[in-house]
């Protein structure tokens, strides 16, 4: 039976018995007297990119402050992981930032590797870079489509999803699943790339730059797009750092910080790519950065493909204390059977220590804090997700702008509520 139950019925929960006094100190004094209007941009809204509730204090059309109310998608992933062994907890991490599941897998898998001190072979690192950059492209395509449709440009959504279907087809070739692939695992990847993958990827990489040019032709010089983007949602670099922004939202303000360059992982230091930087910190700059990130990802993918063809070797660590053997070995080797049994029933022991590991997801820095127990289940796993921090910075980014700009700002910051609420 359900142990933790709500004490109120659904009907009782629907009526708010609170009063305006609860918001004392959170909204300005003018809201208390009724001079400004409190508007609820509720959990069900087409432009909030998920179930986000914003309580807006409006002076006419101008935003005085906004109070984000999150938790409508809180899934208890962190507590559920405490109940599972490290390998079995991996599919739960897919479902946090559901636009780029590979990045979440990578954050978790690389944190586990740091905790148990596991090596990752070179071929696995190259495959991981390919997956992460494809996930970056897929996530930015959804961002582009939804941001554009919120601002009124409906056809961009259809074009973006057409490209995304090709990327999801490639993920399906790799792992069997379009989105929640659980492909990147501690020690490497789940299985080697199938033969059909590289030709598909090369075909995609030869078509995709022209498509990115198409998106730019539709939006970048568009006077409506520029009007809605220039000077909207400006955030200064020092304010951005104080509010903890990372990723394209921070680079839009001109701060040159990308974890792929500063604290490289999975061999990123060996690839030749640039990090686009903005100047003004407005919606338009953040848009341009992500468009240029498409091009940089294509560059990295081309280099990775060339490298993958030359690098042979294992696709996952061979350390059988932590990584289960291939099923083909089970028929011939007794040690393989014993390792398989132990790892899939019990798992492996992790030290009773804490580590923090961060990678660069399409949204920003996603950090994974794992505290082991010395046995097979973690004591605590905490994900520091970029969308959580960015939503907390929405009040400062939207102060003084119009209500229609709120939609533009939410879109430009690229929030995903699964990432925020976990």
């Amino acid at each position, binding site marked *: 039976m*359900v142990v933790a139950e709500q*004490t109120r019925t659904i009907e009782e929960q629907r009526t708010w018995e609170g009063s305006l006094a609860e918001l004392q100190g959170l909204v300005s004094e003018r809201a208390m007297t009724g001079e400004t209007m409190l508007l609820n941009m509720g959990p069900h809204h087409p432009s909030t990119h998920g179930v986000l509730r914003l309580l807006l204090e409006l002076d006419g059309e101008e935003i005085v402050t906004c109070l984000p109310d999150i938790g409508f998608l809180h899934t208890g992933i962190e507590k559920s992981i405490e109940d599972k062994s490290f390998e079995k907890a991996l599919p739960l991490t897919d479902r946090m930032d559901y636009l780029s599941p590979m990045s979440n897998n990578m954050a978790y898998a690389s944190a586990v590797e740091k905790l148990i001190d596991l090596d990752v072979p070179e071929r696995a690192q190259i495959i991981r870079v390919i997956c992460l950059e494809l996930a970056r492209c897929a996530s930015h395509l959804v961002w582009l489509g939804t941001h554009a449709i919120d601002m009124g440009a409906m056809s961009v959504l259809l074009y973006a999803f057409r490209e995304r279907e090709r990327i999801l087809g490639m993920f399906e070739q790799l792992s069997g699943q379009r989105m929640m692939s659980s492909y990147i695992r501690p020690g490497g990847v789940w299985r080697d790339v199938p033969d059909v993958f590289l030709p598909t990827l090369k075909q995609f990489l030869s078509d995709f730059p022209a498509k990115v040019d198409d998106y730019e032709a539709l939006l970048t010089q568009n006077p409506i797009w520029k009007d809605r983007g220039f000077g909207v949602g400006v955030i200064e670099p020092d304010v951005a750092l104080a*509010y903890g922004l990372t990723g394209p939202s921070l680079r839009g303000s001109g701060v040159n910080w990308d974890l792929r360059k500063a604290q490289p992982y999975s061999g990123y230091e060996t690839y030749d790519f640039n990090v686009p930087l903005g100047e003004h910190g407005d919606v338009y700059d953040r848009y341009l950065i992500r468009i240029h990130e498409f091009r940089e990802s294509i560059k990295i993918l081309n280099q990775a493909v060339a490298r993958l063809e030359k690098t042979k070797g294992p696709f996952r660590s061979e350390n059988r204390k932590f990584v289960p053997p291939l099923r083909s070995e089970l028929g011939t080797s007794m040690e393989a059977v014993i390792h398989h049994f132990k790892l899939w029933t019990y798992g492996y022991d992790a030290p009773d220590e804490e*580590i923090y590991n961060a990678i660069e997801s399409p949204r920003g820095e996603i950090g994974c804090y794992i505290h082991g127990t010395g046995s097979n289940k973690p004591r605590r796993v905490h994900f*520091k997700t970029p969308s*959580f921090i960015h939503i*907390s910075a929405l009040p400062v980014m939207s102060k003084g702008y119009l209500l229609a700009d709120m939609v533009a700002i939410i879109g430009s910051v690229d929030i995903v509520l699964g990432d925020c609420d976990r």
Partner: protein
Amino acid sequence: MEIPAPKDPVEAVKEAFGDAVLHIKEFRGETTIVVQPERVPDVLDFLRVTSGLVYNSLSDISAVDYYPNDYGDAFDGEDGNYRPERYGVSYHILSMLYNRRLRVKAFATDEDPVIPTATGIWPSASWLEREIADMMGVKFEAHPDARRLLMPDDWDGHPHRRDYPLGKETVAFSFNIEEISKHKPFAKD
């Protein structure tokens, strides 16, 4: 512009705060400084402004629950594990100038877990602390907004604590599906 040489954070904090520093730990290349909970905002501000340290960005605030028996006098773990109280709150800070990370940790007691807030130093700490107050029950003094963040406003309890049940529903098999369906609230209309 001349960038000053990086200083060792452990030595600098020990020199500035003396006996507020309770323990130092190194693991997998990460340094942890355990301080008294009352001094946490002072230590964080010192690390942020001091030349040679400049830990300008707060990455994460995480809380751990060492229940039931991994803390206090009953804990007889190895030499390197120092866990005097039940809740451990870790502040992960990052120095972009010197490209290094540090962890500042404080322990909060079981009966009255309180730590002064770091919101005055980094505004991003506001929601991170609110989440910990909501989910783990560690209160932060002088926090500007102490409402629940992720759980509904009238929720009882703190879900991330180790003694809070996961809340599983009994898995339905053919032998118990009728029993479960009798108690499950199906919406008829």
